[in-house]
Structure formats: C-alpha cells, structure tokens
C-alpha cells in the first residue's frame, strides 16, 4: 500500500486570524502589514477580497493602497499567530506523530499508520478541516496524495477550505495540465528556462528526456523530473525542536539607512548578541561567521570568514563580522539591511586547539552567560552595552525574541 500524505495550508493565515478577532473586518479587504515607520512596510498577508483587488504579498503597503483604495491594514501580532499555529499542530498531533512544518502555516502529515484508526487520508483531511473551522475559526485547504510534492500541489489547487485528492491513478489527469511554475522549486528563472524549451506544463516536464533536463538544469533537472512524475520518496520528518541546526543567524532592516561604520557596528553588535545567545542556548559554538549586506539600491552580497577557534561569544562574532564588513564594503550606497550568521557549528563541549598566546576566554564566557541570566529574569533591555545607548532608535530591537518565524527548506 502506498503512503498517505496530507499537506494542510492554513488559508491567508495572518489575515484570517485578524479577521476572526475583528468580525467587523470580515466583509472588507484586509491586509496584515509591517510597521511603516520602522521601514518594514510590506504586505505580509491578505484576505480574499484584498487578493481579488490585486494586492500581493511582499509589495509595499502604499502600492497595495493604490490598487485597493479601501484596504484596511492591520499590524501583525506574531504572538497570536504562533498560538494559533501551535493549536493547529495540537489538532494534527491527534492523528499522527509525523508532522513536518513548512513555515508557520503549512504542514505535512504522514497518516499512513493512522488510516486503520481514523479512515483514509481524505476522511482525516475532512476531519482536520472541520476541526480547524470549528475549534480555531480558521480555514485550511488540504491536499491528499501518495507523496509530499503532490500533496502540496493539491492543497494549492482548491482554496479555501477544500480537499484535493491526487492518487497514483489520477495524477496524470490532475497534475500534468498545471503550469510548470506550480511545482515546488520551479521559481521564476527555472520556469523561464523551461518555457523557452516549450516545457509549459508539469506534464511536459514529466515527458521530457531526463538527460536533457540534466544538461539544462543540472542535478535540479533530475529532481524536478522526478517530482513531475510523482517519484518522491522524501519522508515526512518529525520537525520542531529536534531538527538539526546548521546555522544560527539574525538579520534586520534598520529603521533608518546606515551611513557609516559606526552605525553598522551598532547593528552588528545587536545581531551578534542575539546569535551568540541563541548559540549558547543550544549548546553550540560556531567556527565561521558570515554577514549579509543589502544597500538602499537593494544590491546585496554575503561574505564569510573562519574564526581561529569556535566561539559563542558576541564579542568574537561581532568583531569578525566587522572585519568582514570593513574589508568588503566601500560605502557607495547607504545600507538598508544587515545580517549576521554563525555557521560550521560544533557542540560547545567539543575539544579544540587552543592558542598559546591567547588570553583565557572562560571569564568572558561566564560574563555572557550571566547576561543571559539577567535578561531571562529581568527582560532583554535590563542590561545592554553602553554603545547601544548612542542611538536607541536604531538599536531598540530584540532579534532573539521579536521574530521567531524562520523560513525553512524542503531539503533539510
């Protein structure tokens, strides 16, 4: 017997939760947008009325207002969304323990082992949708199939609050006529490459010669060909706390443009502190530090460098990040956003080669751990570096706890 995989996508998640709490908005075009003052002013989510007016996720709020004059823009409340995400997860957990999150509002479930208890995939999908509607007041669309790729395709086909079933018998009829861009991991540029060669639908891709696809797209060509033919054996992973961390990073779009090294230094320290604190919490140290920089012209680049010894100290991470920055940026343009990341992770207790001439780091480690403790007990802003007070508007954010929604990859 084949697998029974569900993909559940909570429809317009942020906007749905906001509309649930404010019934007076339900019949109006609503979008959830970031803080314009802090220059996070893009559309994060919208409801169907706003979508019908052409509002797109990711565009600037003023652009959306032009398309849809009556648009009601509400600020995001991530705490609330995470609560709903957790509650939805609790519902899924009653059907299976194989739950793989894909962002905050999407999830794969492998219910192969539960069909004896609850009925087939379709029944479980119906049940989950009913419970989301009744217990949480939000709708989800579900895709039921024999692999993850088609399950995801299915959940995108009928929205909102509907189930789409794709089986081994009917996938050629349902999936193959779809435009190739619908397939997971066919982005804009891949789609262009394929369309030039008259591969317009998923069916075209599936029937194409695999070796030619390999020449065109490399290994990806093969992967996509397999996806299109329904050959995807990737398991649904139990994701959550136990997922393996490959790197720890934070980035931010600053409330004003950064114009000199001093500005950058302030931000880098805030980010490095967050990265270091998260490394310490997970008992990890990083051996490589990477920075990403984006200018006001939206030109961006990334640079990375190795550290002499693994560390979870914010000082070390920040100074390495500043070295990288100073060596790679010539200030042609002011900077809009900046990120710091620690990768090449090792467990904090692992052995490493110490430097003969370096001073002992133990004291500094104790110091930073104490700062963690103080912050845990009395709040993030209870203890800060003195330099942070130079420009509190610029440094007044807490990357560790303000944003906890991380993008995830299908290939973990």
């Amino acid at each position, binding site marked *: 017997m084949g697998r029974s995989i569900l993909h559940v996508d909570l429809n317009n998640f942020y906007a749905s939760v906001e509309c*649930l709490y*404010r019934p007076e908005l339900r019949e109006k075009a609503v979008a959830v947008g970031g803080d314009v003052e802090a220059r996070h002013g893009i559309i994060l989510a919208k409801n169907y009325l706003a979508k019908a007016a052409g509002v797109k996720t990711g565009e600037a709020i003023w652009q959306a207002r032009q398309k849809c004059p009556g648009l009601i823009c509400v600020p995001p409340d991530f705490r609330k969304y995470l609560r*709903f995400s957790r509650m939805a997860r609790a519902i899924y957990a009653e059907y299976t323990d194989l739950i793989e999150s894909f962002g905050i509002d999407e999830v794969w479930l492998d219910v192969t082992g539960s069909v004896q208890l609850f009925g087939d995939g379709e029944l479980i999908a119906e049940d989950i949708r009913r419970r989301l509607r009744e*217990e*949480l007041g939000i709708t989800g669309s579900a895709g039921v199939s024999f692999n993850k790729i088609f399950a995801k395709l299915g959940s995108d086909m009928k929205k909102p609050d509907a189930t789409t079933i794709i089986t081994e018998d009917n996938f050629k009829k349902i999936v193959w006529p779809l435009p190739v861009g619908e397939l997971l991991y066919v982005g804009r540029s891949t789609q262009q490459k394929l369309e030039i060669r008259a591969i317009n639908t998923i069916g075209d891709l599936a029937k194409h010669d695999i070796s030619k696809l390999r020449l065109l797209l490399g290994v990806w060509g093969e992967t996509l060909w397999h996806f299109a033919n329904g050959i995807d054996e990737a398991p649904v992973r139990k994701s959550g706390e136990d997922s393996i961390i490959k790197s720890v990073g934070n980035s931010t779009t600053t409330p004003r443009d950064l114009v000199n090294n001093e500005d950058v230094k302030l931000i880098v320290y805030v980010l490095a502190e967050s990265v270091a604190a998260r490394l310490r919490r997970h008992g990890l140290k990083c051996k490589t530090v990477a920075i990403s920089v984006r200018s006001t012209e939206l030109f961006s680049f990334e640079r990375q460098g190795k550290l002499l010894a693994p560390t979870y100290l914010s000082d070390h991470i920040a100074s390495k990040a500043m070295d990288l920055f100073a060596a790679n940026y010539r200030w042609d343009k002011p900077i809009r956003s900046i990120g710091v990341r620690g990768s090449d992770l090792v467990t904090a207790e692992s052995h490493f080669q110490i430097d003969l001439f370096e001073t002992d780091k133990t004291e500094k480690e104790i110091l930073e751990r104490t700062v963690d403790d103080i912050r845990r007990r009395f709040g993030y802003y209870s203890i800060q570096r003195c330099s942070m007070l130079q420009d509190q508007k610029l440094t007044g954010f807490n990357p560790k706890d303000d944003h906890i929604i991380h993008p995830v990859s299908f290939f973990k």
Partner: protein
Amino acid sequence: MSKEFIAVTAEHGPDGHIRPLSIKWTNGRVYNIDRVLDVRQAASLKNGGQGTRYTCRICGKEVYLFCDEGKWFIDR
C-alpha cells in the same frame, strides 16, 4: 454590538481544569451557572475570538461562555 469581557468566578482544579461557577453581568448582577453542559475548544464567529468554550445553563438558558487566554466573554 461590541464584545464585552465579563468577570467570572471559577474553580481551578489541581489538575488544571477550570469550572466557571458564576458570572458578573455588565449591569453588576451576579448569575450562578447552574450547569456546565459541554467544554471544548471553539471559535466565536459572532464576537470574534477563540478559546475554551463552556456551554453553560444559566437561569434555564443555554449560553456559550468563552475563555480566551484568561479573558471571559459571552457569545450572544
């Protein structure tokens, strides 16, 4: 019609369960909850909100009493 939160007297059991005993209506009168008929997670579409929904019998009438993260309201 706006959503109004109300004061509730409730019993908190050692296992964490909560049983509402009486409510204080907006006019200040206290009504006893005669019986809790059903407890479940639910969304309130009329007032907007989500939480634990207690189906209560008060003075012979069945009403939905919601507890949304510690704040209580009646779905009417």
